[in-house]
C-alpha cells in the first residue's frame, strides 16, 4: 500500500464539510483503467456557479470539491462499471447521478443544485460517531450557519443564536457590553449546577463559566464571550439527552458544537470588515418630579417642603460607541489549507465609563500527510478586557443604578469641591451617589485565553475512520475593584480594593473510531466506539483590602487585608459504543451506551451508564408513498430515548466533610464546615423521550419540523437544609426530581423563489413546562434572590415564593385598621378579621415563559441586495420588579410611582405598607422584540479591481412591545444563575444598537 502513496498524485481534495479527512484510496490490485470525471455545478435558481460542492463516488472515498468557478475534476482508478456520483453542499439538496465508467476515459457530468429549505439532507457530526445526514437521526438537531451571524451586531455566539433555534431559550441577562447570556435547551435540567449546554469548539470542550470574581451587583460575563462570532462557519445544537448520550455526564443540558472557518484550496482570499456601532438606552424609568416632599415618614404628619428633583438616569446612561474590525486570510494547496484571522472589538456600554474590548487571533491549519492520514491544528488566542461599573446589587449595594434607585432624587448629585454628596434620603442608611460610582470607582476585568486543538484523522482502510482530538483551553481571568477612601457607599467608606483571579484549565482527549459498511444491499451498518479523558482544573485567589490609604489602588494600600485561595481538580473518563443500522435508506435504528467515571462521583457511584436508542423512518422513501410525494415530498418520523448526566452540579469535593482553616491571633485552627459531605453523591440523571416529524410540502418550498419531548431528571441534586441538630446546616443530596415537557416547532418556507428574488421565512415556536418535585420539606430557598425565590414542590424552577396581599372573600384587599394594604399572615383574628401571626409566603410568580417564538424573514434581490429581520417573543412569564419596589418606597421615592402618595391620592404610608407585600411587584414580562434588522448592499467598484465591497446597516433590539414597567423584562440581576431568573434589580437594560459596516473581500 505504501507504493500508492509514492505515486504522489495530488488527487485528494479536502472535503470541507466534515471533520473526517476523506482521501482517495487506490485499490491498485483491481485497477484496470483510469478515469477522469469532470463538469460544473450550478445554482438552479440563480444560475451562478457553486464553489465548494463535494463530489463523491458513493460508497467510496473518492471525492473532490468544486472550485470558485463551480468546476470539478475527479480522477479515479475504480474498475469499469456503473457508479453513483453524489453532489452535496450545505444549504442545497444533494443530487445523485449515475455514471458509467467504460470505454471513454473522460466523463462529463454537469449538475444543477437547488436550495434546500428544509435541510433534511444536511450532514451533522454532533452526537454521532461519523458524519451523518439529518434524515438518519432519530432526534432533532438544529444547525445554524455562520452566514446568519454576519451583518449582525453581536458580541458573542450565544447572543447571536437568540431566536434561531427551536427549543432554545436564550436570555441576555445584562445590557453591559459583554453582558452575560444564558442558554436553556428544552428548559432547565438542573437546580444547583449550570443550566448552560456543553460547548465544543472544533473538538475542544471549552469553558463557559461565569465567574463572579468581583461583585458587580450580580452581573458576570460568561466566557463564551471570548469566541469571535465572525470566525464561525457552522453551529450544531443537540437539545436532548437522547442525542447527548454520547457526551455522557456533561450532556444533560444539551450540546452546542461550534465549527470555525477553514481554508479552502485556492489562491489566498482576504476578507476585511469594519463596523461602527452606536448604542443607547431604549427606555428609562419615569422619575419622581413632584416638587415637594414629606418632611418625615410619620403616618399622620402631612407637612411637605419644596424640593428640586433630578433625573439621575441622565447622568448614568450615555450614548455609547463601538467599533469592530475583522481581517481574515485563507487559502491553500491541495494538501495544505490555512485560515488566519484577527479581530479587534471595542464596545462602550450605555452606562457611562463601561467598555468591553476584545482582541483575538486564530489559526487553522489542515495538512494531508498521505492518502490515509491528515492532521489539523487550531489555535485561538484572546485577550479581552472590560471596564465595569457595578449595578444591580444582590449582595453589595455600591452600584451606580443601585445608588440611583436607593436615592430620593431631591439631592443634587453633583460633587461640591470634589466631594460627592450622599444621596441617601436619611442619615440612617448610606447609599452610593451614582455619579461617584461612575467617576471614582475603578472596576476592571481582564481575560487571557488560549484555546488549541490538534486532530489526527486516519482512514487506514475504506470506511474506517479513526479520529483523535487533543483539546486544550486555558483562561486566566483577573478582576480588580477599587473604591477610594472617603465615599458614599453603604459599607466601604474607608475604601475598598479587591483583586481576584481564576485560572481555568481544560484538557480533553477524544478517540473516536467508526466503521461503515454495507452488510447487504439493503442494510448499512455504522459502528462507532470511542473513549475520552478529560481534566478540569481551577485555581483561584482573591484578596480583599479595606481601610485604604489615599491614592494607591492595589490591595497593598489596605490596613486590613484578607486573602483566600481555592483549587479544584476534576477528572473524567468516558467510553462509548454506538451502532446504527440503515434499512434500505428508509429506516435507521441506533443504539448506544456510554460509561462514565469521574473523580467527583462518590466512591459507590463511580461508574455511570447512559444508554440511548433511536429510530428514524423516512416514510416518504417507501414505494407506496409515490402517489403522495407530489404533495408531501419528504416525511420522516423519528423517536428516541436516552439518558444523560449532569456533573456540573457536583462540586469538585462535594463528597467530603471539610474542616476549614480559621485562625485566632497566633493560633491556627479548623472548624467543621456547615456542609456535611455526601460520600454517595452521583450525577443527576436525565431520561428523555422525544418523538417528532420532519416534512416538506409544495415541492420542498415549505418545511416543517416538529418535536415533542419529555425529560425526567432523577437524582436531582439539591443543596438541602439539614436539621441543624446534626451539627451541620446543609448538604448536596440527590433527592429531587424535575420534569420538562414541551414541543418545538419550526416552519420554514420560501414564499418567493425567483431567479432574482428570494424570500425565505422561518417561524420558530417552543413551549416548555418545568416542574420540580420531591423537594425535602416542600420548599428550598435559593441564595441570590433575597430569599424570595425557591424550589417548591409542584412548581417550576425559579418560582417566586413570597408574601401576598391579604384579601377579603370577594377578592378585594383586606386593609389594616389604618386603611393600608397588608400581607396575608398565618392566621386571622376571630374578632377583627385581621391577619395575625407571621407572614405567610406562597408562590406568587413564575419566571419561565409559557412559550418563546421568533419570526425571521430574509429577502435577497439580485446578487447584491439583502434584507433580514428577526422578531423574538416570549410570552407568559413573570418578572420580579425589585427596582420598582425600592424606587417607589417613601424612604427612597425616586420613581414616579411614589408621586400619588405625595399628591395625597393614596394615604401616606401606602408605599411603605406595600414594600413588605412582594406580590405587588410581580409583573407580566411578555414581550415582542424587534431583535435584528439589517440591510446589506454589495458593490463591485472599479477601484477595487472587480472585488466585492459590502455595505451593511443593521439594528438590534430596536423595539420592544411589552407591558413591563421596568427597564427591560429580559434582564436578570442574578446573572447566569440557574435558579434565580427574571429578577429585575436595576440591572443594566439591553441597549438599542445601530451599526454601519463595510466589508471588502478579494
Amino acid at each position, binding site marked *: 500500500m505504501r507504493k500508492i502513496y509514492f505515486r504522489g498524485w495530488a488527487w485528494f481534495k479536502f472535503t470541507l464539510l466534515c471533520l473526517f479527512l476523506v482521501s482517495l484510496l487506490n485499490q491498485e490490485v483491481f485497477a484496470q483503467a483510469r478515469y477522469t470525471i469532470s463538469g460544473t455545478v450550478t445554482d438552479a435558481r440563480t444560475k451562478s456557479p457553486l464553489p465548494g460542492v463535494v463530489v463523491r463516488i458513493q460508497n467510496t472515498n473518492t471525492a473532490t470539491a468544486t472550485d470558485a468557478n463551480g468546476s470539478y475534476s475527479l480522477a479515479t482508478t475504480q474498475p469499469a462499471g456503473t457508479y453513483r456520483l453524489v453532489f452535496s453542499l450545505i444549504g442545497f439538496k444533494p443530487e445523485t447521478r449515475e455514471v458509467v465508467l467504460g470505454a471513454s476515459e473522460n466523463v462529463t457530468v454537469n449538475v444543477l443544485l437547488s436550495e434546500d429549505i428544509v435541510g433534511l439532507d444536511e450532514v451533522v457530526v454532533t452526537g454521532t460517531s461519523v458524519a451523518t445526514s439529518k434524515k438518519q437521526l432519530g432526534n432533532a438537531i438544529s444547525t445554524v450557519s455562520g452566514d446568519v451571524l454576519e451583518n449582525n451586531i453581536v458580541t458573542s455566539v450565544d447572543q447571536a443564536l437568540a431566536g434561531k433555534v427551536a427549543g432554545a431559550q436564550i436570555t441576555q441577562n445584562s445590557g453591559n457590553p459583554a453582558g452575560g447570556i444564558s442558554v436553556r435547551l428544552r428548559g432547565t435540567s438542573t437546580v444547583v449546577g449550570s443550566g448552560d449546554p456543553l460547548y465544543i469548539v472544533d473538538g475542544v470542550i471549552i469553558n463557559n463559566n461565569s465567574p463572579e470574581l468581583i461583585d458587580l451587583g450580580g452581573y458576570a460575563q460568561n466566557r463564551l464571550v471570548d469566541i469571535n462570532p465572525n470566525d464561525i462557519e457552522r453551529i450544531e445544537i443537540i437539545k436532548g439527552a437522547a442525542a447527548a448520550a454520547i457526551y455522557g455526564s456533561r450532556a444533560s443540558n444539551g450540546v452546542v458544537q461550534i465549527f470555525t472557518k477553514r481554508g479552502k484550496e485556492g489562491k489566498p482570499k482576504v476578507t476585511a470588515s469594519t463596523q461602527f456601532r452606536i448604542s443607547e438606552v431604549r427606555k428609562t424609568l419615569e422619575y419622581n418630579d413632584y416638587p415637594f416632599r414629606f418632611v418625615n415618614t410619620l403616618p399622620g404628619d402631612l407637612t411637605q417642603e419644596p424640593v428640586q428633583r433630578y433625573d439621575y438616569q441622565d447622568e448614568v446612561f450615555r450614548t455609547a460607541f463601538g467599533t469592530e474590525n475583522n481581517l481574515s486570510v485563507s487559502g491553500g494547496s491541495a494538501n495544505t489549507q490555512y485560515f488566519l484571522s484577527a479581530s479587534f472589538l471595542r464596545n462602550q456600554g450605555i452606562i457611562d465609563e463601561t467598555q468591553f474590548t476584545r482582541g483575538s487571533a486564530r489559526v487553522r491549519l489542515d495538512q494531508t500527510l498521505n492518502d490515509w492520514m491528515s492532521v489539523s491544528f487550531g489555535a485561538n488566542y484572546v485577550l479581552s478586557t472590560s471596564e465595569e461599573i457595578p449595578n444591580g446589587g444582590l449582595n453589595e449595594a455600591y452600584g451606580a443604578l443601585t445608588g440611583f434607585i436607593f436615592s430620593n432624587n431631591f439631592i443634587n448629585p453633583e460633587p461640591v469641591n470634589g466631594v460627592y454628596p450622599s444621596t441617601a434620603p436619611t442619615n440612617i442608611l448610606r447609599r452610593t451617589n451614582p455619579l461617584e460610582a461612575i467617576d471614582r470607582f475603578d472596576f476592571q476585568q481582564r481575560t487571557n485565553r488560549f484555546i488549541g486543538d490538534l486532530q489526527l484523522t486516519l482512514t487506514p482502510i475504506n470506511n474506517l475512520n479513526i479520529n483523535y482530538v487533543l483539546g486544550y483551553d486555558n483562561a486566566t481571568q483577573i478582576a480588580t475593584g477599587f473604591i477610594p477612601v472617603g465615599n458614599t457607599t453603604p459599607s466601604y467608606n474607608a475604601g475598598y480594593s479587591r483583586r481576584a483571579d481564576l485560572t481555568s484549565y481544560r484538557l480533553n482527549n477524544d478517540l473516536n473510531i467508526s466503521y461503515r459498511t454495507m452488510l447487504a444491499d439493503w442494510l448499512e451498518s455504522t459502528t462507532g466506539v470511542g473513549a475520552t479523558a478529560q481534566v478540569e482544573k481551577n485555581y483561584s485567589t482573591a484578596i480583599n483590602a479595606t481601610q485604604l490609604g489615599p491614592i494607591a489602588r492595589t490591595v497593598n494600600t489596605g490596613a486590613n487585608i484578607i486573602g483566600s485561595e481555592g483549587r479544584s481538580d476534576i477528572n473524567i473518563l468516558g467510553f462509548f459504543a454506538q451502532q446504527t443500522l440503515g434499512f434500505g435508506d428508509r429506516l435507521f435504528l441506533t443504539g448506544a451506551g456510554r460509561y462514565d467515571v469521574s473523580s467527583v462521583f462518590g466512591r459507590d457511584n463511580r461508574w455511570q451508564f447512559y444508554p440511548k436508542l433511536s429510530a428514524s423512518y423516512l416514510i416518504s422513501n417507501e414505494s407506496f408513498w409515490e402517489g403522495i410525494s407530489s404533495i408531501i415530498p419528504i416525511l420522516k418520523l423519528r423517536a428516541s430515548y436516552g439518558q444523560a448526566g449532569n456533573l456540573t452540579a457536583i462540586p469538585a469535593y462535594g463528597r467530603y466533610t471539610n474542616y476549614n482553616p480559621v485562625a485566632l491571633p497566633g493560633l491556627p485552627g479548623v472548624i467543621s464546615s456547615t456542609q456535611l459531605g455526601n460520600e454517595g453523591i452521583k450525577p443527576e440523571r436525565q431520561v428523555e423521550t422525544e418523538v417528532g416529524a420532519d416534512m416538506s410540502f409544495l415541492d420542498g418550498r415549505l418545511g416543517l419540523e416538529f418535536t415533542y419531548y419529555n425529560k425526567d431528571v432523577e437524582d436531582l441534586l439539591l443543596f438541602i437544609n439539614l436539621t441543624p441538630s446534626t451539627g451541620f*446546616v446543609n448538604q448536596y443530596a440527590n433527592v429531587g426530581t424535575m420534569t420538562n415537557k414541551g414541543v418545538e416547532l419550526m416552519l420554514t418556507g420560501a414564499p418567493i423563489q425567483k431567479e432574482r428574488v428570494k424570500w425565505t421565512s422561518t417561524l420558530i415556536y417552543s413551549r416548555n413546562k418545568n416542574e420540580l418535585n420531591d423537594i425535602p420539606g416542600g420548599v428550598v430557598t435559593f441564595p441570590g434572590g433575597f430569599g424570595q425565590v425557591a424550589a417548591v414542590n409542584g412548581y417550576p424552577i425559579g418560582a417566586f415564593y413570597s408574601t401576598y396581599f391579604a384579601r377579603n372573600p370577594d377578592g378585594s384587599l383586606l386593609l389594616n385598621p389604618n386603611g393600608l394594604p397588608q400581607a396575608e399572615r398565618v392566621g386571622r383574628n376571630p374578632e377583627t378579621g385581621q391577619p395575625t401571626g407571621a407572614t405567610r409566603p406562597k408562590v406568587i410568580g413564575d419566571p419561565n415563559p409559557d412559550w418563546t417564538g421568533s419570526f425571521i424573514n430574509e429577502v435577497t434581490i439580485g446578487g447584491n441586495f439583502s434584507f433580514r429581520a428577526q422578531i423574538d417573543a416570549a410570552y407568559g412569564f413573570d418578572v420580579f420588579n425589585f427596582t420598582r419596589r425600592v424606587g417607589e418606597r417613601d424612604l427612597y421615592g425616586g420613581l414616579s410611582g411614589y408621586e400619588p402618595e405625595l399628591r395625597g391620592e393614596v394615604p401616606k404610608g401606602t408605599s411603605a405598607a406595600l414594600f413588605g407585600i412582594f406580590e405587588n411587584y410581580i409583573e407580566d414580562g411578555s414581550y415582542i422584540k424587534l431583535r435584528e434588522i439589517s440591510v446589506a448592499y454589495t458593490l463591485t467598484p472599479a477601484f477595487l479591481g472587480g472585488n466585492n465591497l459590502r455595505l451593511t446597516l443593521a439594528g438590534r433590539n430596536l423595539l420592544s412591545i411589552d407591558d413591563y414597567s421596568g427597564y427591560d423584562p429580559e434582564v436578570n440581576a442574578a446573572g447566569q444563575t440557574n435558579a434565580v431568573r427574571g429578577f429585575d434589580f436595576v440591572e443594566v437594560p439591553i441597549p438599542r444598537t445601530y451599526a454601519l459596516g463595510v466589508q471588502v473581500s478579494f
Partner: protein
Amino acid sequence: MKNITSFIKTGVLAGCLLLTSSCELDLPNPNAASDLEVLSSREGIIALSVGVRQFYSTAGLEAAYLYPGVTGRELKGVATFTNVLELEAGGTALPSFNGNILSLWSRMQRTMSMSDQILTNAPNISGISDGTLSGILAHAHLFKGMALGTLALAFEQANTETSITENIMFRPRAEVLEAAISNFNQGIALLDATPVSAEFTTLVTGNAFDLKNSLYAMNARYNLFAGNYDAAITNADLVNLSATSEYVYSTQSVNPIFNTTNLEVGLGYFRPRDNFGLPQELFEEGDAREDFYLTGQTDIVNGDPVRTLQGFFDTQTTEIPVYLPDEMKLIKAEAILRSGGSLEEALNLINEVRTQTTGDPFGVHAALPPYSGPVTRDALLLEVYKQRAAELYLTGQKWEDSRRFGRPAPPENTAERNRNFYPYPDQERLNNPNTPTDPVI
C-alpha cells in the same frame, strides 16, 4: 500495513501518556482537611479545639449576644432586611423561618457538635500528654456547656446532644441548663485532676483566655439561672476576680459585634438603644458605664433613640471578655437574695459594683453613689436587675434577666422584651418530627 500498525501503537502510547493525568479518581481536597484527617490526629484535635473557640467567639457570640439583645431591647435592628425587621418587631411577627433564630439555633448546635467530636475522639489519640488532654477536654466541655446554656436562654426546649444519624429529642430548658452545668463540672473536675500543661496554653488557649476561671464563671452564671443558688455562690467565689479571660480578634477573625453593628466599616444592621434600652425609671443618670459602652449622637430611628457602640465593640480587633468580674458579685447578690440570705451582704455586693471607680480589670466602672433606696428583698432584686442591665450590657443575658426578674412581658408590654422565647426554626421542624410546639409568644 506495518506502517499503520506502528502509527496506531505510537498513538495509543501517546494517548495513554496524556491520559495518566486524568486517570486518578480519588483526588484529595487541597482546600480543607477532611473529617478523617482532623479527628484522628493530634494536630487535628488541637486545631479543632482552637477552631471551636474561634467559631464561638465570632459566629457564636454574634448570635448569642446580638439577637437576644434585640429581643431584650438592648439593641434596635435598623437594617431593612426582612429578618432584621422581623426580629425587631418580635411578638407574633417573628416567624419560625426567621434567619436570625435559625443562626442562633444552628451555631450553638455546631458548637456542640464540634465539642462532642473533640470529647469523643481526643481520648483515643495517642501522643497527647495528660495535661494537654485534660485541657482539650475541659475546653470542649466549656464550649458545649455555653452552647447548651445559650440555647436554654432562647428556647423553652432544646436538645442536649447532636446526632447525624437520628432525630434528636427535645428536653425542657431546666434539663438543658443541668446538662450545661454538668459539662462545666466535668471540665472543672478534669482540670482539678490534671492541671493543664504549658503546651496546652501555647497551642490552644494562648494567654488571653483563662480556661479554669471561665469554667467557674459560667458555672456560677448558669447555676444562678437554674436556681442552684449555693452552687452559684460557690463557683462565683472560686473565680479569681483579678484575672481576666478574653476572646481575642484579628482582621482574619473579627469582633462580630463590631462587624455587625458598626456603620462605617461593618454592616450596621443593629444599633444600641439609648440608655442601654432601659425604661427611664431603671436608668440612672450619671452612670459612667453609659459612656463606656455608648458614644456618639442620638439618632431617632422609627421613633426610637439609638446611639453608637463602643466599649468592647469599637474596633475589628477589640477583645471581648468571656465574663466580667463584677458579674460574680451580682450573681452572689442575687443568689443571696433569692435564697433568703442576708440583705446587708447583698447590699454590700451591689454597692461594690455601684460605687466602683477604679480597679475593674476591664475598666467597667459605674461611679454611682451607694444604693439609697429601700432595703427590701424586692427592691434590692430590682436594683440587681438594673445593675446587671448596665454592667453586663450586651452579654446575652438581658433577655433572660427580664424573664427571671418577672419584668413586664409581651404581648401586653414590649418595653423590656418583645418575645418570651423564640419559636423553633423551621429548618429543624421540617425534618425532625420531635420538634415541640412553638411558644405562643
